[in-house]
């Protein structure tokens, strides 16, 4: 089985689970006692929050592995996880704003959870920009890996911010903290997004590896040489 088929398999599995989970979340699960139908945003918001934190944690692991092992494989996975984490965190903020307006009355508040998420988004987006500006692959990989290790210190702060400080944001939602009738769509969407993430990380890391290989390819000999 080729690696393309493995990625396609994870991608298709992810999309099926996400479609099924979203259908249950939108049309089958009951409305929340207080938030009503608006709470259905949870089935897409919470999986993206979990996966954003997982992907940034992976970026940290890959950055450390690159600096320790000095293998380009880890740099490609580092770039892939940075891009995916920034995408997920951006979507997380949009979903959160759309959930915040009808429940809090505002799209955005400088609450500890939202502020730490904004810092996380901007710091990792900055590292991704840094990678685009640096042409030298060795410098690009080393500098961005170091920056990722520093920026990753904020990831556990984001997770625990709702416990450490008084926050407008509710505590983390999980299968243990939500009604049993809401567990199935939440779990399906979480596993669906996990499978899709595996596929996207694979494909994006191949693109990063190809770009790096092209940049380090020896120059072609001059014509007639």
């Amino acid at each position, binding site marked *: 089985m080729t690696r393309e088929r493995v990625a396609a398999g994870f*991608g298709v599995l992810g999309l099926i689970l996400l479609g099924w989970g*979203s259908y249950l979340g*939108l049309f089958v699960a009951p*409305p*929340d*006692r*207080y*938030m*009503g*139908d*608006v709470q*259905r*945003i949870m089935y*897409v*918001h919470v999986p*993206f929050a979990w996966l954003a934190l997982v992907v940034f944690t992976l970026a940290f692991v890959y950055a450390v592995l690159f600096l320790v092992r000095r293998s380009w494989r880890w740099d490609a996975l580092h770039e892939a996880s940075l891009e995916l984490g920034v*995408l997920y965190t*951006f*979507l997380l903020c*949009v*979903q959160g704003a*759309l*959930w915040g*307006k*009808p*429940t809090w009355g505002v799209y955005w508040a400088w609450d500890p959870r939202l502020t730490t998420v904004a810092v996380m988004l901007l710091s990792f987006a900055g590292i991704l920009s840094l990678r685009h500006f640096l042409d030298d692959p060795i410098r690009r990989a080393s500098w961005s890996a170091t920056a990722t290790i520093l920026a990753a210190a904020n990831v556990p702060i984001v997770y625990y911010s709702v416990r450490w400080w008084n926050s407008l944001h509710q505590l983390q939602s999980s299968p243990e903290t939500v009604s049993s009738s809401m567990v199935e769509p939440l779990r399906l969407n979480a596993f669906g997004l996990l499978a*899709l993430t595996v596929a*996207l990380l694979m*494909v*994006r890391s*191949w*693109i990063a590896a*190809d770009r790096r290989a092209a940049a380090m390819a020896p120059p072609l000999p001059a014509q007639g040489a």
Partner: protein
Amino acid sequence: MSGMIQGGWEFVWASYGITGAVMLIYMASLWVRRSDKDSSE
């Protein structure tokens, strides 16, 4: 007064719609970037 927020489906649809659209665009961009590499070989 039930204490439950009434309506709000427009926020739900916007949330799912934007998420789905952005994810589709991102997957398409991966496809294009991968195809560019294949065609340049």
